[in-house]
């Protein structure tokens, strides 16, 4: 079997036809993932026992003639900010290098309940803070399509694992673009669902008003199946929504003729010419499918980066306060007094980007600055939200680039934090508004670097987003 291109449907078919067992698939996947890891560093840890146990349960169900679940035997890689009981979860931080969670995230419980097989934990930027995966305490991830380039971030390991074919599905987390941007850079599908669609119970908190869990996959259908599995109300996350979860696969073959699409003019001015051409060609494909594309304006876009890096860092400075040497594994050896323990544990444990964000977030919340920065940013966030509300009064979905450029070289931007932040411009707006957004592969540059097209839809209208993405993927395959 060619495990590098398997889909959920092919695995199901192969298992039910007894052409291979789930345990065989898990072993072969782990074997290939371990071998590949020397080149990409996509994984921080493998979970062979857990994977084989889960796979054996699927095989037993099939042997008994029972329904093995929608993810039966499907190898899933999990970003290392999502808690897995008994399996190290480090957040790619020195601070949590030895942390073993006492419980599973709800998304993990649902995946395993659906027959999914967790094969390992993927590398990422430390505490999901970064756009290149270079902020991992355990080394950067390399883009499997171009080893001298970054896979994007912060869910770089998850995107790389799916792209290189060592996992069929992966879970990522997205606070300002951390699923869509690496999906774009690695040429896979990445979905940031509506805020509240997927429970964050067990997701290590970075910026709670912005954090999402979402799927990465090689096909739109597989992403839809994984989202359907993990979506829905969870009593353990008060921000998870009651909204009913439709079967997204039902939308995939829908007609997109007559759908009204908005193309925001603010998203087209700073693209590299190749990215601009590929997005234009993608929009043309949608037009040929019968979509009505019109230019729209989202005027608050110019303020999005400033708004995001105030709100996200303010929330991060609060969420990361818990790593103080008392509860979470790492404590500095220089802990003579309580205060020295706090300061030195954090000073020695956090990497540069986390410190930078804790500093910025503490500054904008500090006495005398709160109104000028944090409160102002919350008001500007409302303007960004209203931009989208106005746009969705006239269009059914928005199409846009994911990133101004394709994957950049390792080391190219790491010394210029503001330039790195500015590259998040097209993904950050959707995060601030909390609307569902996804990246679908939209061709490659002359150098073979993938470019993703972003589709954004109304709150809780992932179905329209998947309908468009499904039609686009089909049109591009023909």
């Amino acid at each position: 079997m060619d495990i590098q291109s398997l889909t959920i449907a092919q695995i199901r078919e192969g298992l039910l036809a007894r052409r291979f067992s789930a345990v065989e698939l898990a072993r072969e996947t782990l074997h290939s993932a371990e071998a590949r890891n020397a080149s990409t560093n996509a994984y921080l840890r493998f979970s062979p026992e857990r994977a084989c146990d889960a796979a054996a349960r699927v095989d037993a169900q099939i042997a008994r003639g029972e329904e093995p679940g929608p993810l039966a035997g499907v190898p899933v890689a999990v970003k290392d900010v999502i808690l897995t009981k008994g399996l190290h979860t480090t957040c790619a931080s020195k601070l949590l290098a030895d942390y073993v969670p006492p419980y599973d995230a709800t998304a993990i419980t649902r995946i395993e309940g659906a027959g999914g097989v967790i094969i390992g934990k993927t590398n990422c930027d430390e505490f999901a803070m970064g756009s290149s995966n270079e902020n991992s305490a355990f080394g950067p991830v390399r883009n499997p399509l171009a080893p001298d380039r970054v896979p994007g971030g912060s869910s770089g390991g998850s995107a790389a694992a799916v792209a290189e074919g060592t996992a069929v599905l992966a879970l990522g987390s997205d606070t300002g673009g951390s699923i869509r941007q690496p999906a774009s850079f690695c040429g896979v599908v990445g979905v940031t669902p509506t805020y509240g669609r997927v429970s964050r119970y067990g997701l290590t908190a970075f910026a709670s008003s912005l954090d999402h869990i979402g799927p990465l996959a090689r096909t739109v259908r597989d992403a839809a199946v994984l989202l359907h599995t993990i979506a829905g109300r969870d009593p353990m996350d008060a921000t998870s929504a009651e909204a009913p979860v439709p079967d997204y696969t039902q939308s995939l073959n829908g007609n997109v003729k007559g759908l009204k699409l908005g193309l925001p003019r603010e998203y087209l001015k700073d693209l590299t010419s190749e990215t601009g051409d590929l997005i234009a060609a993608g929009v043309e494909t949608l037009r040929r499918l019968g979509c009505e594309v019109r230019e729209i304006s989202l005027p608050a876009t110019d303020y999005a980066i400033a708004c995001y890096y105030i709100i996200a860092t303010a929330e991060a400075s609060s969420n990361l306060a818990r790593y103080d040497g008392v509860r979470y594994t790492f404590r500095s050896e220089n802990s003579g007094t309580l205060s020295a323990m706090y300061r030195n544990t954090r000073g020695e444990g956090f990497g540069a980007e986390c410190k930078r964000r804790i500093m910025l977030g503490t500054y904008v919340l500090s006495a005398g600055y709160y109104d000028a920065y944090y409160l102002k940013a919350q008001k500007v966030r409302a303007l960004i939200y209203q931009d989208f509300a106005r746009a969705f009064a006239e269009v059914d979905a928005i199409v846009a680039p994911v990133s101004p450029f394709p994957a950049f070289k390792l080391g190219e931007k790491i010394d210029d934090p503001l330039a790195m932040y500015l590259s998040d411009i097209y993904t950050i707006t959707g995060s601030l508004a909390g609307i569902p957004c996804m990246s679908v592969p939209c061709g490659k540059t002359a150098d073979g670097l993938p470019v993703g097209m972003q589709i954004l839809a109304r709150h809780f209208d992932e179905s329209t987003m998947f309908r468009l993405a499904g039609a686009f993927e089909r049109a591009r395959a023909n």
Partner: protein
Amino acid sequence: MKITEKEVGYVAELANLSLTDEEVHRFQADLDEILGHVERLKGVDTAGVEPMAQVLYAAADTVTWRADRERPPLGTDLALANAPQPGDGYFKVPKVIER
């Protein structure tokens, strides 16, 4: 200049973060540049705009509380399993008050 090295030191104290001199120097430059970019918010007219604390602010119907029922807790052993210095069912820290 938006922020001085002295202010960086003060913010680091608020954040309980020990920084080396080199880090203070570096973060002064980084924060200064980022705060320079953030300046643009000052020009935005937000008169009459309600601050948006989170996404569901316009969708109160989806915010629900779970039923207030007891459920089994993690238990002390599991809760302390990751503690750097557990003891007698507690998280231990350096002595705060001398007797």
